[in-house]
């Protein structure tokens, strides 16, 4: 018997690679977490039980305009210190523990709390920052300065749910069957670089960006130093954190279209660029020249969620698996086709996205 109980996972054959699965309903129709849990459970062997997590969009319609903070606290002392900071910068609309269910396979949990907050008018007025930038700054402050407190979700009308354990157990633990979302993203982890801790599981979030990632980024060292130049601080020890910051920088701060951001992360080779027509060649060359430090080198398959949009992307030589499918208004992506067929046995189309070509799902006009 190992610490995780009956399933003696550590003596099973070591299979490398994490697993991910996600879907979005472009019509805005919401569904419970049951489907996504079922899908990710099928990809069980891709994890080693050291991390699992979910992101869900559209789950807090009553508080849709407030920022939903999800936090881990080591103990009451950290909670008190953190709440003092939160109260000084934000109005707390509602506060309370995140409901959980005792689940076999999930070990001792930290205190898990949720707040719905709005930045205090008078504080924001004195800063030269937008509300979003203000929230980013405060979240980074909590994560760096307050011992024992960690914000693991900070977007509007969305939330991340993660823990140390297999993803299906994590989904059970957080009672995700009781939530309704138009987009669900799930991930199971097989970490080798960083120890298993609750904050280290995917998805990594900042504001309402959530990223899950399968692979290892060899360019992490320079991606990290690049985003740090723009005020982001990499506090975790994972590659995924830096990808979330890159997307926030490129999409929100630099205002680039999502296709451009994806090209920056997984650009075409010079061999190909040299044969493009003049205008295209200038565009791609400029992207590589200016955003070279944002290129993500190394195998990856990522899914990025944000309000109203889901993006899935492979690295430029497709070293990690990613399969996509569509049925009606729902777009699915997963590390394996079986993960999709488990919850959608007869999709309209199934395909393997090409290197550097993102799969993009967007909420249709006039939906929730």
């Amino acid at each position, binding site marked *: 018997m190992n610490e995780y109980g009956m399933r003696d996972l550590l003596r099973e054959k070591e299979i490398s690679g994490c697993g991910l699965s996600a879907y979005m309903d472009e019509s805005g129709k919401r569904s419970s977490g049951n489907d996504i849990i079922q899908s990710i459970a099928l990809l069980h062997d891709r994890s080693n039980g050291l991390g699992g997590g979910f992101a869900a969009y559209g789950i807090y319609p009553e508080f849709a305009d407030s920022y939903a903070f999800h936090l881990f606290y080591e103990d009451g002392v950290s909670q008190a210190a953190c709440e003092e900071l939160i109260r000084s910068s934000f109005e707390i609309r509602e506060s309370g523990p995140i409901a959980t269910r005792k689940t076999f396979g999930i070990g001792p949990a930290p205190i898990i709390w949720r707040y719905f907050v709005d930045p205090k008018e008078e504080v924001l007025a004195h800063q030269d920052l937008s509300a979003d930038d203000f929230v980013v700054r405060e979240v980074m402050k909590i994560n760096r300065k307050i011992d024992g407190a960690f914000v693991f979700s900070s977007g509007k009308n969305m939330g991340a749910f993660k823990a140390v354990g297999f993803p299906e157990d994590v989904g059970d633990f957080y009672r995700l069957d009781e939530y309704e979302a138009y987009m669900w993203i799930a991930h199971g982890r097989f970490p080798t670089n960083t120890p298993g801790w609750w904050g280290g599981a995917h998805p990594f979030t900042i504001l309402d960006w959530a990223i899950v990632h399968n692979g290892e980024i060899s360019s992490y060292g320079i991606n990290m130093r690049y985003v740090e130049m723009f005020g982001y601080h990499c506090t975790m020890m994972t590659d995924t954190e830096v990808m979330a910051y890159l997307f926030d920088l490129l999409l929100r701060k630099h205002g680039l279209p999502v296709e451009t951001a994806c090209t920056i992360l997984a650009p075409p080779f010079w061999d190909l660029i040299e044969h493009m027509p003049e205008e295209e060649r200038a565009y791609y060359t400029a992207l590589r020249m*200016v955003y070279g430090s944002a290129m993500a080198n190394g195998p990856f398959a990522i899914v990025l969620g944000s309000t109203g949009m889901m993006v899935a992307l492979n690295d430029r030589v497709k070293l990690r698996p990613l399969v996509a499918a569509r049925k009606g208004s729902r777009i699915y992506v997963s590390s394996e086709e079986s993960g999709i067929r488990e919850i959608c046995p007869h999709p309209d189309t199934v395909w393997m996205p090409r290197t550097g070509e993102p799969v993009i799902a967007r909420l249709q006009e006039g939906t929730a």
Partner: protein
Amino acid sequence: MRFSYIEPEFLVERRLERCIRCQVCVRQCAFEVHTYDEASDTVFEDSSKCVGCLRCVTYCPTDALIVRQNPTTFKENANWTGRVIKNIYKQAETGGVLLTGMGNDRPYPIYWDHMVLNASQVTNPSIDPLREPMELKTYLGRKPDHLNVSVKEGKVKLETKLAPQLELRIPVLFSALSYGAISFNASKALASAAYEFGTYYNTGEGGLHRDLYRYGERTIVQCASGRFGVHKDYLQAGAAIEIKIGQGAKPGIGGHLPGEKVSEEVSKTRMIPVGSDALSPAPHHDIYSIEDLRQLIYALKEATRYEKPVSVKIAAVHNSAAIASGMVRAGADIIALDGIRGGTGAAPTTIRDNVGIPIELAIASVDQRLREEGIRQQASIVAAGGFRSSADVVKAIALGADAVYIGTSALVAMGCHLCQICYTGKCNWGIATQDPYLEKRLNPEIAKERLMNLLRAWEHEIKEMLGGMGINAIESLRGNRLHLRGVGLTDSELDILGILPAGR
């Protein structure tokens, strides 16, 4: 002084049973070490004249010659070494400043040899450069913080206009080697090799010879404190202009070209009289403070219609990070840093061996400082000073350099044997000389081939190392210090370099 106390540095030995008295050694030594005596049909040698260039050894068709350090020694003394004693003798005998050539040869720590590289295994596949694309293309110049794009009918179009850039096939270029310090054949070899290979070469402060204007689009023209050879056509001819504030071999003082090396052609190119010593002033006399530098940078940009990047080259010294930050804000598009191992054709030995800091530390601190100030992308960093192999290049890029200048390596590729007597003008290999007897010894076609071979070999090795790290584009290595680990370094050295110790 009639009688010298200085023992010969080298001992020339002839294996008599192998000597065929062909007299090649006699003809090839510009220092007249070997002489042939007809009466006894013997070749004699005067070791006191030998400078250790190994020309005779290499050319002897029967390998009859050996040149080695003179085994005669002083009494063992860790403080008063033979070198130090002889230097005092030299100065006592001449009253002169000790002169030397090439780069610092003292045993300061070589940080490249204390850094090791990563390789990807299991969790991340390494990439095979023979079967997969491996990209080394590098752009040097000012880059904007972000790009503006517009979307029209689903197509994305670039709106931002970019500053002029230099495009390099690999992140290696030829360092400043002035015409005058080196021969025309050597300059031509460097220019043509850079042109054909797809990188750049630097004129140094010797100006640009008319016959080399055709390689202009691959030439960086230098504007140094003496302004030798600087005129309108010269500035227009190059692809970029480099303001030389200092060089690693002699920080704080200007260039040196002894009058013996100022031939007719050199005089025309530099715009100075034949036979006159070309001593560049220590500072630019129109740059006494940072704002003056800004003035010169923009004067050059105006003169060339903002079509060429302007680089500023400094020696790596104590405040390099702050100086570099100032240079970037003054408008420099490229910062060239030259470390303590940088080479030269002539420099006072004391300055070469004691002034400046190792380039490894300079790259790390400049790169880090520019990032902290959020201005790193406004200028590219090119590092120089003793890069001996492709591994040194890869490590420099991992520390944060955009590209590397090679000077000594290029000269060695052409045949230099590092005997350090460049300032005499009697280079037996035809590289650092203007003497017509000696200059033709360097065949520019062969030299060009050798330079291109070196670049090709390093290109391949860099690709192998990158692939080993699981990276297929050099952008992902640039500044990525997590791929380096230190071995045998102190805590503060690790801290300055910004790398972890091996094992962590």
